């Protein structure tokens, strides 16, 4: 395993080890590029992963202080991870490609009042070969000849109700969870705790795929418990390295030839804003003023239903199936863009009584809790509109233990979002009622696990932060390597696209390094 010196300025520094950072690091290391990955969280092993929702929430989540505003919970605006592997330890595994028309959101939907819509600078065709590479890397089911997973009880309810109300594009999804042994990892045992970390490694996570593979090349070093607080630059405006606080609380500087930021869409813009200097007074790579803006979280919502017989929805993969009939752009529904319906578990107990109807109590509610075994559930995932006012800024009040201002995240639904959620709730309710539900609970979003768009790709410098390769418009050796790059959110779970973009970015970086352009 390689170890690099802090003053080695030939390395590529990658901040974050999740879907974006973890993948990029391995791809570069495989090409012979030297990489230092700085990860804010600790490094766990499979032995640390337990089938315990609460324990794993505390072990994996990013719980450093943040401020939520608008419609977000004050203390925990997003549910993402701080650990080697990042949010790929926690993700449910859904791996959907963004649809061709969604890359052209402005062209397809037209101008939407109050939204900051833009077409991506890349097209579906640009990304298609990288989607295929990503699916092969992750062992995505339903692609590359890999069989889909078998559906669990919760899926069967979704499928039955869905077909009853006329849906046809219903299946067990494209999941980066092994339907058969793949890449040295076992077949899924339908354990039922995907989002608490897969204890057997059947679900793809950079923690036990990309990171160890990168280490095996001898070109890669990951430093856990290393929180980057600032990116430095020289007089010419090029990034020269990063300042980080190591596991012992000591401040260090790692020099770099190239810096890639993949801290998830809240920490990435925070770091750029915290790296303001006299040359970049409004934050690094922020000449457009777009750093932190257009924060998207997917418009989500949850539906739980009490069914006439046992479901045991905790059994088996949590995102066990999907209905895709609503994910097109059909303006006659009264909104732009579309949504997916995906099964979701109840997170067991005390999860189910805590949030089927948050704050509820009394005899009627107790009776519903007694029917836990009959509960079914799904999650609504909708494209949300980019809005300049939905944004990540630096808190004026709260600093972290390193003295850096924490992120303040503001989010409020756009009227298009609200209209779509109401449509999705109605359809989901109809679906469960068609399958015989005796009661249906609809609830507002959980803190978001999908975070996108705060350093978006744009063709023109004034419209966004980076180009179609994630290279920032202002600083040629600074890259955005996570979901922050997303120009629009599309309706699909973002991880597959983050991985595909990272593979494409690695090719570009290696090529540009070879040509001595960066």
């Amino acid at each position, binding site marked *: 395993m390689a170890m690099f010196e802090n003053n080695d300025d030939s390395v590529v520094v990658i901040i974050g080890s999740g879907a974006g950072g973890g993948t990029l690091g391995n791809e570069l290391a495989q090409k012979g590029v030297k990489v230092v990955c700085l990860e804010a969280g600790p490094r766990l092993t499979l032995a640390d992963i337990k089938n315990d929702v609460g324990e794993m929430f505390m072990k994996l989540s990013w719980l450093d202080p943040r401020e939520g505003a608008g419609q977000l919970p004050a203390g925990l605006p997003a*549910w993402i991870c701080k650990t080697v592997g990042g949010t790929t330890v926690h993700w449910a595994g859904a791996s959907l490609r963004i649809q061709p028309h969604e890359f052209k959101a402005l062209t397809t939907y037209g101008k939407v009042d109050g939204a900051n819509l833009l077409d991506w600078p890349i097209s579906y065709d640009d990304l298609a070969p990288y989607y295929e590479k990503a699916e092969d890397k992750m062992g995505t089911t339903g692609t590359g000849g890999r069989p889909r997973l078998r559906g669990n009880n919760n899926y069967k309810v979704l499928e039955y109700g869905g077909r009853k109300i006329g849906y046809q594009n219903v299946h067990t999804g494209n999941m980066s969870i092994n339907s058969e042994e793949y890449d040295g990892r076992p077949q899924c045992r339908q354990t039922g705790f995907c989002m608490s970390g897969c204890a057997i490694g059947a679900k793809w996570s950079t923690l036990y795929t990309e990171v160890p593979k990168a280490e095996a090349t001898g070109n890669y070093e990951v430093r856990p418990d290393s929180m980057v607080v600032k990116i430095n630059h020289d007089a010419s405006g090029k990034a020269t390295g990063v300042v980080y606080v190591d596991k012992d609380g000591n401040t260090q500087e790692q020099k770099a030839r190239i810096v890639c930021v993949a801290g998830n869409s809240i920490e990435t813009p925070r770091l750029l804003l915290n790296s303001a200097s006299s040359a970049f007074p409004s934050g690094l790579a922020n000449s457009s003023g777009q750093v932190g803006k257009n924060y998207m979280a997917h418009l989500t919502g949850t539906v739980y239903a009490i069914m006439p*017989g046992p479901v045991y929805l905790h059994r088996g993969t949590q995102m066990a199936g999907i209905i895709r009939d609503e994910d097109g752009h059909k303006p006659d529904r009264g909104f732009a863009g579309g949504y997916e319906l995906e099964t979701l578990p109840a997170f067991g107990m005390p999860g189910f009584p805590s*949030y089927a109807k948050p704050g509820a109590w009394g005899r009627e509610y107790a009776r519903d809790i007694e029917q836990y075994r009959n509960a079914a559930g799904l999650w609504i995932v909708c494209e949300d509109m980019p809005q300049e006012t939905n944004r990540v800024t630096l808190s004026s009040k709260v600093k972290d233990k390193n003295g850096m201002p924490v992120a303040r995240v503001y989010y409020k639904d756009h009227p298009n979002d609200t209209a779509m959620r109401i449509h999705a709730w109605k359809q989901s309710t109809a679906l469960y009622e068609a399958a015989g539900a005796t009661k249906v609970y609809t609830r507002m979003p959980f803190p978001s696990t999908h975070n996108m768009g705060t350093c978006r790709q744009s063709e023109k410098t004034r419209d966004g932060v980076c180009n179609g390769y994630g290279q920032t418009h202002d600083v040629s050796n600074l890259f955005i390597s996570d979901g922050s790059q997303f120009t629009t959110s599309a309706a699909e779970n973002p991880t597959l696209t983050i991985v595909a973009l990272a593979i494409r970015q690695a090719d570009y970086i290696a090529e540009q390094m070879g040509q001595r352009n960066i």
Partner: protein
Amino acid sequence: MLDDFELTRRKFLKLGGDAFFMSLALGTGLAPLARPVFAGEMKVLSDSDAKTLLAVSRTLFPHDNVEDGYYMNAVAAVDAKCAGDPKTLDMVKQAVSKLNSGLGKPFADASEIARTNLLKTMEKSDFFALAYGETLNNLYGNPEIWKMFGYEGSSVEYGGYLERGFDDISWLPTT
């Protein structure tokens, strides 16, 4: 050992946030008692206080087939909080006194409708938040209760559900 994990948990609880996450954090690290705690074992609360709190927990989540002992775990958790903080003790004592003076008879002896209506007037209070959170997490955090209501807990040690009924649904029409 008060490890990092526990410290993080405590720190997080101070942050506030979505009830969902609060419940996850609160539920963490609980070691549900195999044997229910009974009155007479309270640290600082009287047996009479405990009886009132038991009635509060039973009013919040009334399951007729669940014995008092399971609810008493929540009461014991409130008692433990009171033992650690005089202000909490004071707050709980005041709430108990209010509960017992509001219905013309001891709270525990009142009808469920009367108890429910009185508790509704206190929904915004710190006492309610404490009693609600502890009941939710201690009652539904107990593996014995999971069994009763059909939650099966950790599965990896049994090889997951692949061969244990993940797709055994039998009541759906097959058409």
